[in-house]
């Protein structure tokens, strides 16, 4: 089966160096980048599906030119090849444009399943998977905790996390699945994988390749007006005492605030 995985290079949350630039947009040069955490869970699920059913995993990113290096990490986990959409005109692209670009690329690459993360650590819109599905006229199976393709019926069955547990949902393939970490932790690239990734193809695509009409003539649909540091909390109290005294301190604190 052919599986397309949307992977977004994002600032490494562990580095803690994320910064907003002068235009209040993310300063993508300020921080080392990694594959978005949830996308790694999607990629892991895709790799396991292909190991079980055969086929190819292709990663698709829309990102600045230097992101190819981050995409290589996805190839080192086991993806077959990558597609990297990069164009200066897409810098700071809004949600509708991101969706149109990714949908247009996905259309050019026949697939059974398109997997995306449930949301991104830098944007957290949580909207791209649903948007791409709508653009392509495909069913969306979101909040996925398991993914099971059924060959005989050409459908895919997903456990969708709900407020009470999960729903078992099913739709015909091709379909779009938005993935959660409940799918299971991603593998670490092996040394062999890292070596193999060096020679795997990452095709670079520009706006002209896709069709310039995906970018709106009138500019982005949203803009950031200002950014401020969050309001600081008053400094707290630190206590080091034997457990019984510490327990009384906490209980006094809770009583003062009428929590008990």
């Amino acid at each position, binding site marked *: 089966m052919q599986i397309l995985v949307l992977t977004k290079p994002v*600032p490494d*949350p562990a580095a803690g160096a*994320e910064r907003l630039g002068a235009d209040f947009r993310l300063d993508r040069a300020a921080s080392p980048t990694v594959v978005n955490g949830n996308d790694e869970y999607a990629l892991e699920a895709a790799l396991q599906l292909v190991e079980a059913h055969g086929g190819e995993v292709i990663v698709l990113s829309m990102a600045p030119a230097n992101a190819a290096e981050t995409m290589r990490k996805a190839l080192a986990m086991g993806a077959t090849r990558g597609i990297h959409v990069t164009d200066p005109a897409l810098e700071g692209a809004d*949600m*509708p444009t991101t*969706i*149109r670009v990714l949908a247009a690329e996905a259309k050019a690459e026949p697939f059974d399943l398109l997997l995306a993360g449930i*949301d991104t*650590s830098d944007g957290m*819109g949580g*909207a791209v998977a*649903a*948007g791409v*599905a*709508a*653009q392509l*006229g*495909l*069913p*969306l199976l*979101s*909040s996925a905790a398991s993914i099971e393709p059924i060959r005989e019926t050409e459908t895919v069955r997903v456990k969708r*996390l*709900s*407020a*009470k*547990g999960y*729903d*078992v*949902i099913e*739709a*015909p393939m091709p379909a779009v699945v938005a993935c*959660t*970490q*409940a799918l299971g*932790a991603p593998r670490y690239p092996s040394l062999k994988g890292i070596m193999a990734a060096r020679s795997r193809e990452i095709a670079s695509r520009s706006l002209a390749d896709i069709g310039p009409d995906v970018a*709106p003539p*009138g500019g982005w*649909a*949203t*803009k950031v*007006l200002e*950014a401020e*540091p*969050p309001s600081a*909390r*008053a400094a*707290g109290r*630190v*206590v080091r005492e034997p*457990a019984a005294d*510490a*327990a009384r*301190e*906490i*209980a006094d604190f*809770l*009583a003062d605030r009428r*929590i*008990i």
Partner: protein
Amino acid sequence: MAPRILAVAEVADGSLTKLSTEVATVARQLAEAAGGEALGLVVDASPDAAAQELATYLPTVIAVTNPAVTSEVVAPHVVAAVAKLIEEGVTHVVLGVTPDGRDVAGSLVGLTGLGLLANADTVTWQDAGPVTHASVLAGKAVTSSTLTGDRGIVTVRPGGVTAEPAASAGTVERRDATAPAVPAAKVLDRVAEAGAEVSLEDAKVVVVGGRGVGGPDGFRIVEELAQALGGVVGATRASVDAGWIPYARQIGQTGRVVKPELYLGLGVSGAMQHRVGMQASKAIVIVNRDPDAPMAEVADLFVVGDLFEVVPALTAEIRARKGG
């Protein structure tokens, strides 16, 4: 053109969700500030009770009766109803940050190309449009954002506003369902799981166990403390990934966002990805044996100690004070 602002409500077990009452309040307040009109939407197999409740917040409520949502995922059916209302002149759509709310918002962006202001904590109306205030970059900054056009979509997080009924109740208009604008997946089964049913968002007290709790056995003393406090148990990704507690309990960037009266963290280091889900809590109390854990930056009370000693003592102390 006066804006027409639509609040999209969600129904759980026949009644309106708490977040929906907040979404309705936001839509009405925006419409008042903009000199426009606010309306609400409920799509359900039997929407009447929820629609009546929604009408206590909004002057006009559209109730779409759609039996298909018992056997299909709801989002495509909501998308169809909203798309129709946009055709009829709705300019702004407000939804809650929930799995269904995000699916509806994303589908609408894909279908209409409208801009999305996501994850707002609060929304105000300034000049000609909504301005959303949202926490970004793992809590490092609060941004104010707006739409560049005169239409768009806004999603709001729980607890940003206090739900307030309108001065007088509105009217409910019943409509039949239209065909979904995007294909809907079938629902084969709805499974309830032990431990998933609590509402972290609505809890006044959240007691969180991190990796320091050490295992499923350790969660027993976390659970006992939560019970003594009348609270619910939450978790970090470390304890979820270890399989000690269901994902539904995870707090943080890829889990739930909570704002309780009390957040009590036990064996939690305070990684940024966790803190974005809890740092708006009213009071934060931490028990951690490492005084340099990052949680110290946000704690009101930070107890340096071994949770296996402090927690049982605290549970006993609380029970004693409550006279139990």
